[in-house]
Structure formats: C-alpha cells, structure tokens
C-alpha cells in the first residue's frame, strides 16, 4: 500500500488491514510520521512527538499481532493523546508553562486500556492551557491552526487532537471534554468526536480542570471509529471514585443504519438568535435526512439554555481554583527563580507559570467560593444545574435523541476570540449543558459553509444511552463520505511524486 492509501484509512479499516497482513503497524507509523513532518510546520497540532518510541512500540505490537496475542480492531493503529492525559515517561504539559518539564511516572487508565488493545502512541497533542479555552490559542506552546484554513482556529480545547485527525497526522486521538472541548473542535475540523456519559471512562491520570464535568473521549474520522475506541476506553476503575460500573459497553453493536421510529427532538432554543444561518441550514438538512430514513422529528422547547453558561463558569471555575492549587512549585513543574519566603515562592511560581485565561478562571473560582459569596454564586449554580438536569430528563421522556448544532458558528479566525472572553464563552452554548447534566454527546460533520469551513451536527443522548446517538450518527453518516482537507491531501500527493 502507498502512504496515501494508508493515511486515507479510518482507524478500524487500518486495524483490519494490519490484521489481514496487507500492511504492518510499522508501515502505518512511518506513513503517519512523514505526514506529521509535512503538516506540523503549518499546524502545530502536537506539543510532543515521540518518533523512536512509536516505532519501537509498532515493532513490538506487530510481533504480538502476528503471534495472535493481539486480536482487537485497533491493534497496531497509531493514536495521538491530548497533553492533559498522563503517560509514564512521556512529557505532559497541559500546554502550560507551569508543567513545562513534567514527565509523569504513571499512566492514565484510559491510555492503559488503549495500550492493552495494541495502540501505538505517537505523542501528545496541543490544547488550550489546562483545557481552558475554545480555540487552542491559550496554549503556552503556540496556537494550533485549522487544517481547512490555517488562518482559522481549530476550536478547543482539544484543538490539537482534532486538527491532527483531520490532517491525517494520526488515525484517531484522545481528547477531553469539560464544556464542549471534544465536540466543538471536532465540528470546526470536520471530524467526529464523542463525549461519553460522565463516569464511563476513568479520569485517573487526566489532569483535572472541572472534576464533576471532565470526561475523556475519542476523536476520529467517523462514528464507527468512535464507537470502537469508546469500547476500548470504557472501564470501571477503582482509582476513580466517580467511575461507573457499566454493563452495556458493546457500543459497536449500535452501528446499524436503522433509525426507523427513533424519536428525535430539536430544541427550538438551539435554533434561535445567535446561530449562523449556514450552520442552521446544514443542521436542519441533517435532521431531514434522518427523517427520510424513518426517524420521527419534532421541535420542542428545552428550556434553561440561557442559564447553562453562567452556571458552568461558576462551577468549572470553582473546581479549577481548587484543582489547580496543587501547582505551587514544590512537587513538580515550574518554580520561580527569585522569591521571598515560602508563600512568595508559591505566588511567584504560579503567577509566572499560568497564562491569563487560567488566572482569570482561578480568580473567579476563588471569589465564588469565598466566604460571603458561596451561597449567592456557587450554591445558586449547583441549584441551576439541578434544574438543567430536570429539563433534560423531561426531554428524554419524549425523545431518544436530541439533535442540534455543536457551535453557533464555524471556526473563527486566529486572534478574534481572546480579546473578549465573555463572547468566547457564549460560543459554548450548545455543548455546555451536556456536561452539566452528565450526558453523552456526539458531533458528526454535516457540511461546510461558504468559506469552506466544516459544520458539525450534535447528537445528545440520555445518560448511558450512547448507543442511541451512535446509531443516529452512523445512519446519518451513510449519506456522506469522509472528506479530508486539501492541505492534508496535498502533503500526501507530494510524497507520491517522490
């Protein structure tokens, strides 16, 4: 197989070809490393690339596949991992200066699960610092660019993972999603991203931002890959006290082109003011395709939508202020060179190590938790969260799946978002309530705008009902073929000529 043929495969397709002996894991890793070399100067999807380690792993995995020890669908397939997920011996920075030299001495359970299934890890992907942001511009190691148009952002915070999948720099990637950080960049980059029900994938080894909202999830070229990866990632883990023991983890069973009788609700509040017209059109067209396939569509009022963002920023910032207090220059990471006394060292190390967006959220979080304000802000937000959950419970008594946009617009240009944080936060309106209610959400590419930038449709399911959104996404996807950005295809074509 040529490099171009290999790189055009999905993860599951590649896994099958490796198993059938048509291509080796080492060949796949070499093809993808070449693609990384061609794309990285333009995109900056990665913080760390482990070329030698990847080739060593591929050789070892290939032997075990040939010996019949590894038989899973993803054995030998190269993966990229977001830089907030710890891997023993591999630098993990959270795209922050404060963790510039941090090399974990343990591996996240999600990554252990991948390794057990024969995954080959290529390196760590860029992100907004500590996953705080929607553009991957707050990274201390430079912004990532969108492979569909490098003047635009890839979205965030899992922008590196999504750009890397879109540009064929890996076959799939791990992201994390606290308020939309998998689903929004997947939508901006024209790839598929899934955030499972809270508690499905262990958070052990995921560097915490908002612990009650954080979930790891897959980013891939299609729904089949996402379902296959989720099946590997989902596990009950005693190292994560919020891990849920699930019995229905055969997610690939839901990959059926059948939505007959499926009840799909479209929240009218997701189609109103602020939504770009081209995004609206593409999302409604996706809904009509499912209707033609036999789904029952209905528009309804979800309610509470406008309260999700303020509630989220109180809760996520509060949890972040507590979680990030561990970075103080003592146990790991950056320590200021000059300081006065112990407390001076804490303050100087943190002030020099954290970027502006992280400081903004730590300060807001410290404020809403402080004595005198706790009830008015933090408890109020937790009560709002209960009402949001109730609104979804009512919706899921009527519908199997909720369908809507992933983001109000397509990817903005670099430099347009950070000047007005509040405006940037408003872009999370369709994704954020899903985290507050602990629900699973999936975004699938559904078209492009007049500028040629991808648009994603989001499917939201009730807790533990990933199979419904996988089935809806898979059925929808049968009507379109995967499209790769021109830039990535050109890089491969260049190789053919050599």
């Amino acid at each position, binding site marked *: 197989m040529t490099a171009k043929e290999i790189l055009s495969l999905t993860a599951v397709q590649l896994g099958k070809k490796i198993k059938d002996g048509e291509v080796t894991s080492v060949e796949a890793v070499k093809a993808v490393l070449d693609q990384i070399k061609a794309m990285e100067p333009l995109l900056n999807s990665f913080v760390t690339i482990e070329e030698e380690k990847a080739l060593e792993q591929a050789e070892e995995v290939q032997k075990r596949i040939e010996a019949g020890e590894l038989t899973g669908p993803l054995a030998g397939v190269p993966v990229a991992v977001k830089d907030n997920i710890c891997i023993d011996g591999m630098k993990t920075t959270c795209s922050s200066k404060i963790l510039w030299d941090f090399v974990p001495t343990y591996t996240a359970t999600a990554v252990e699960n991948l390794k057990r299934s024969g995954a080959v890890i290529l390196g760590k992907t860029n992100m907004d610092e500590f996953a705080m942001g929607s553009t991957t511009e707050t990274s201390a190691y430079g912004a990532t660019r969108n492979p569909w148009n490098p003047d635009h952002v890839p979205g965030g915070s899992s922008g590196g993972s999504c750009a890397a999948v879109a540009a064929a720099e890996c076959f799939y990637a791990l992201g994390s999603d606290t308020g939309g950080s998998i689903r929004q960049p997947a939508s901006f980059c024209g790839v598929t991203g899934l955030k499972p029900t*809270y508690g499905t994938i262990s958070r052990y080894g995921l560097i915490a931002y908002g612990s009650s909202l954080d979930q790891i999830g897959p980013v891939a070229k299609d729904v089949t890959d996402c379902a296959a990866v989720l099946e590997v990632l989902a596990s009950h883990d005693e190292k994560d006290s919020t891990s849920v023991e699930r019995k229905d983890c055969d997610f690939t069973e839901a990959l059926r082109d059948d939505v007959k009788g499926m009840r799909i609700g479209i929240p009218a509040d997701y189609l109103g003011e602020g939504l770009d017209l081209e995004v609206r059109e593409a999302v409604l067209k996706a809904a009509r395709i499912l209707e033609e396939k036999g789904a029952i569509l209905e528009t309804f009022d979800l309610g509470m939508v406008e309260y999700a963002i303020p509630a989220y920023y109180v809760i996520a910032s509060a949890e972040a202020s507590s979680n990030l207090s561990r970075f103080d220059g003592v146990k790991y990471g950056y320590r200021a060179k000059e300081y006065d006394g112990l407390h001076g060292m804490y303050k100087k190390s943190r002030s020099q190590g954290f970027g502006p967006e992280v400081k903004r959220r730590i300060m807001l979080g410290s404020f809403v938790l402080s004595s005198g304000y706790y009830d008015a802000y933090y408890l109020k937000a937790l009560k709002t969260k209960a009402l949001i959950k109730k609104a979804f419970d009512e919706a899921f008594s009527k519908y199997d799946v909720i369908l809507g946009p992933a983001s109000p617009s397509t990817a903005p240009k670099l430099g347009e978002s950070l000047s007005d944080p509040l405006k940037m936060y408003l872009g999370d309106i369709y994704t954020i309530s899903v985290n507050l209610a602990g629900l699973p959400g999936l975004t699938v590419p559904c078209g492009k705008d007049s500028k040629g930038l991808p648009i994603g449709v989001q499917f939201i399911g009730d807790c533990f009902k990933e199979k419904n959104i996988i089935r809806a996404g898979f059925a929808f996807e049968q009507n379109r073929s995967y499209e790769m950005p021109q830039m990535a295809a050109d890089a491969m074509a260049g190789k053919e000529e050599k």
Partner: protein
Amino acid sequence: MAHMIDDTTIEYVGILAQLELDQTEKEAAKNDMGRMLDYIDKLNELDTDGVEPMSHVFPVHNVFREDVVENGDDRENILKNAPERKDGAFKVPKTVE
C-alpha cells in the same frame, strides 16, 4: 457595570488564589471579573427555592477499600519531578526559624 470590583477585593482574591498580579493585570482582572459577575447575575432570574444543589449528576458515595498496604516504596517516583530535592524529600524555603 453593576459589579464594581475594588482594589481590596482583588487583593483578597489574589491571596485566596495565591497569585501576584502587577498593576496592569489587576486592572484587567477587576474589569473581567466585574463583567463575568454581571453576566452570572442572570441566574438570579431563576426561582431556586426548595431546589437541592446538585454537585454530582449521579449519586456518589465514598468508595472504601480494606486498609491494606498495596503500594511499595514509591519515593523515587514521587520526587522525580521535584524542582528541588534534598535527602529524599522536597526542598522548600525555610519557613520556621
């Protein structure tokens, strides 16, 4: 802006957050936090009387295990990323005279 964050508040938040801001950062923080709190005030439109605060979506309970030592001596791993270390411990500036 309905919320005017004064210097005292921002100093206090700086202490809680263990952050040291220069004058420019302080002014920006006052403005940003004021705007965010104005926006968050939207939650006051909601009647939440009698609503139980929801910290977790699913009922979470303490996960206990038997009090048996399972890990060995992990000192070297724990200290591996320390910015400064001494005699098998983290080294910090002197705090007690």
